[in-house]
């Protein structure tokens, strides 16, 4: 398993601004994943982040809106750009182990006003 720490745990932001969410893992992992969980909903994969290459985005998500960095094997950031109230969600980072099990950070609860 892994210990995954996300910062901030929550934030309230003004529309039009950007927020960068950090995800730190206590061990080296090849892939990190970013998910969005809208209020009352399940999880939707935003993108997969590999170290040393550009992130791979899922349909409906674009790099200009959700730029991702992956500078090393234990850290990644997700930026939510030019925010609107529709971006209010919980954002979660995740890592995979053993080719099967996925573990999650505690999430970042974002409210855009």
């Amino acid at each position: 398993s892994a210990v995954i720490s996300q910062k901030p745990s929550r934030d309230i932001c003004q529309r039009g601004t950007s927020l960068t969410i950090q995800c730190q893992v206590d061990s080296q992992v090849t892939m990190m994943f970013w998910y969005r969980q809208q209020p009352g909903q399940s999880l939707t994969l935003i993108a997969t982040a590999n170290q040393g290459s550009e992130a791979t985005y899922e349909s409906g998500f674009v790099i200009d809106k959700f730029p991702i960095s992956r500078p090393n094997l234990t850290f990644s950031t997700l930026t939510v750009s030019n925010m609107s109230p529709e971006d209010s969600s919980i954002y979660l980072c995740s890592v995979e182990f053993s080719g099967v099990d996925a573990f999650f950070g505690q999430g970042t609860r974002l409210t855009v006003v």
Partner: protein
Amino acid sequence: TQLLEQSPQFLSIQEGENLTVYCNSSSVFSSLQWYRQEPGEGPVLLVTVVTGGEVKKLKRLTFQFGDARKDSSLHITAAQTGDTGLYLCAGAQGVYKYIFGTGTRLKVLA
């Protein structure tokens, strides 16, 4: 788009009762995970099932993976208030990619 439908969507039961949550898809998954998520927290992995027909038990929780690897169930025996939470199934789609179910929100009343 592949979907994992969970049923029921909401469930409110008394402590001590049994319940079953279902996770269904028309797609085949190489593995399937079950998670529980509490308010303000990320999902916590409960179990991973890999083989069709596999049954895993975790104390009062019993997980089954369908023979065709398209569906799964979670059965809780003698539910406790601590079982309250959002239960999510997630199917592995290819390598390193998971499709999450629609979720079942369980409330166990004392």
